[in-house]
């Protein structure tokens, strides 16, 4: 069932673990299996590995190691940021945007169902939040502003510095989901109070991530227990995972310029070529975008079928189509951008990784017109060229 001959262009969903990362992890399953809380040498060895990884990440982000709280991934990190802030009291106001990942969105929904006030910021046609809107939305009882750094579906980058500065001015903690942005773009850590990261989007393993928590930021924990992570997140440390996250971070930051430049090249080329196809559009911002994500819509095409047809050609991509979603709703991101339902239905996200080659892009561009035509031929709707 090996998949590595395939063209994998769904790196926003998850990435293959880098060989260097896996190699660094393996010993911690086998010989170096200690519990980082144990006193004996196996335990101390595990502790050292965890703290080295923490220090490495802190160094790259230019923050203090004690500000890194390891979690089981970004879903947990996002929940910790939102719920951990909100549950300190029994009510209050939170501000977030319409284009957040479900981990932020549904945390906010849950809090709203528990009597908290939630303001959802609108976005423009490119998916950008306006910093002025943030300023206007802040109230005396605002507990948190959470706006993602870069969107996972359309790639649009948010004006994080401007938003962070407003929050700083008004003394409101500012959280950003940087899952897709981490290791890809510069992050203004000086105005960020909390930041979520997930390893598996970064050629690290699934099931591990972290929340950066600026010193002094008040949180009630979500997972109670042995008091790990300075009491902010209990649970036996996932030592191999944490080691893997450290190495993945190191690689991402060291290779960043080179890799993102290549990604930008792919993105520009993709946009240029895909938009040559009939009845096609780009979703998201043409330039203010993460380098690895490009999102298109095809008229009179249903996205799930498109993905499955590309899969027949051994090409892995994704869609925001209603048919592909567990609740039959089209992508809330595309809807927030004002993409008409019919076009949201035919969306295609192409996302590149460190391992992506020009061949992969070429394979997609070769298959795409074929499968689009095939699906249009199958459809009762006929689209003019």
């Amino acid at each position, binding site marked *: 069932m090996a998949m590595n001959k395939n063209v994998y262009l769904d790196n926003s969903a998850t990435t293959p673990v880098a060989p260097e990362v896996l190699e660094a992890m393996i010993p911690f399953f086998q010989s170096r299996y200690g519990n980082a809380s144990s006193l004996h040498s196996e335990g101390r060895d595990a502790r050292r590995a965890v703290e080295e990884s923490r220090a490495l990440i802190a160094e790259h982000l230019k923050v203090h190691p004690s500000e890194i709280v390891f979690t089981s991934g970004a879903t947990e990190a996002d929940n910790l940021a939102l719920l951990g802030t909100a549950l300190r009291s029994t009510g209050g106001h939170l501000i977030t945007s319409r284009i957040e990942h479900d981990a932020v969105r549904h945390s906010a929904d849950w809090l709203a169902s528990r009597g908290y006030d939630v303001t959802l910021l609108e976005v423009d046609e490119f998916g950008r939040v306006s910093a002025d809107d943030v300023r206007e939305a802040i109230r005396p009882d605002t507990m948190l502003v959470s706006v993602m750094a870069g969107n996972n579906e359309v790639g649009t980058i948010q004006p994080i510095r401007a938003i962070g500065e407003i929050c700083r001015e008004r003394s409101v903690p500012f959280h950003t989901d940087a899952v897709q942005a981490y290791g890809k773009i510069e992050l203004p850590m000086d105005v960020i109070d909390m930041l979520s990261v997930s390893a598996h989007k970064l050629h690290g393993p699934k099931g591990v991530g972290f929340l950066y928590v600026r010193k002094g930021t008040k949180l009630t924990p979500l997972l109670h227990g042995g008091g790990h992570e300075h009491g902010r997140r209990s649970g036996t440390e996932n030592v191999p995972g944490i080691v893997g996250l450290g190495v993945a971070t190191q690689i991402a930051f060291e290779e960043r310029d080179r890799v993102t430049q290549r990604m930008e090249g792919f993105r520009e080329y993709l946009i240029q070529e895909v938009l040559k196809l009939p009845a096609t559009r780009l979703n998201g911002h043409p330039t203010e975008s993460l380098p690895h994500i490009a999102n298109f819509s095809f*008229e*009179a*095409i*249903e996205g*799930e*079928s498109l993905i*499955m047809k590309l899969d*027949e050609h051994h090409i892995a991509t994704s869609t925001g*189509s*209603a*048919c*592909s979603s*567990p*609740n*039959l709703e*089209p992508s809330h991101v595309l809807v927030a951008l004002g993409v*008409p*339902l*019919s076009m949201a*239905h035919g969306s295609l996200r192409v996302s590149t990784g460190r391992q992506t080659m020009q061949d992969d892009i070429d394979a997609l561009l070769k298959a795409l017109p074929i499968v689009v035509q095939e699906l249009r*031929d*199958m*459809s*009762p*709707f*006929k*689209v*003019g060229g």
Partner: protein
Amino acid sequence: MYTEKVIDHFREPHNRGKMENYSAVGKVGNIVCGDVMWLYIKVDKNDAGQDIITDISWETFGCTAAIATSSMVSDIGKGKTIEEAIAVTNQDVASELGGLPPIKMHCSALAADALNEAIYAYLIQEKRSIPEALQKRHDHIAKEMAQLEERYAAFTEKGNSKPRGCE
């Protein structure tokens, strides 16, 4: 997720495309997911004088399951009498495909509906009496279809084959 049989029918669907000289067409859509299916039938009398569906084809704008169930319902319906075909349920379609994920059961409903709508259109056209259940089902489907037409107006204006609810 999908069974191998669903994937097979999606990859190599049977009886796809518009039919020349069809007897009737059924047009259905699901307002929630937005998928649309047109199903063409050809009806002929058999030696015993019964109405037999001798051929079926379809045009579908929709998900993997919508395409696979289009393919499957066209296989199932072919050769059946009108009465037999009316009795085909979405359960039949789904189970012939080895089952569908719960969220995708409505796709098989779309396929069964499309067959029913084609039969409804045929009966109307032939001025036959309409069983009450069929009439009810049609009324419901027609309403949904009208809403979808609006959504896809852009596609259909450019094209030459306007979806217009059931003919």
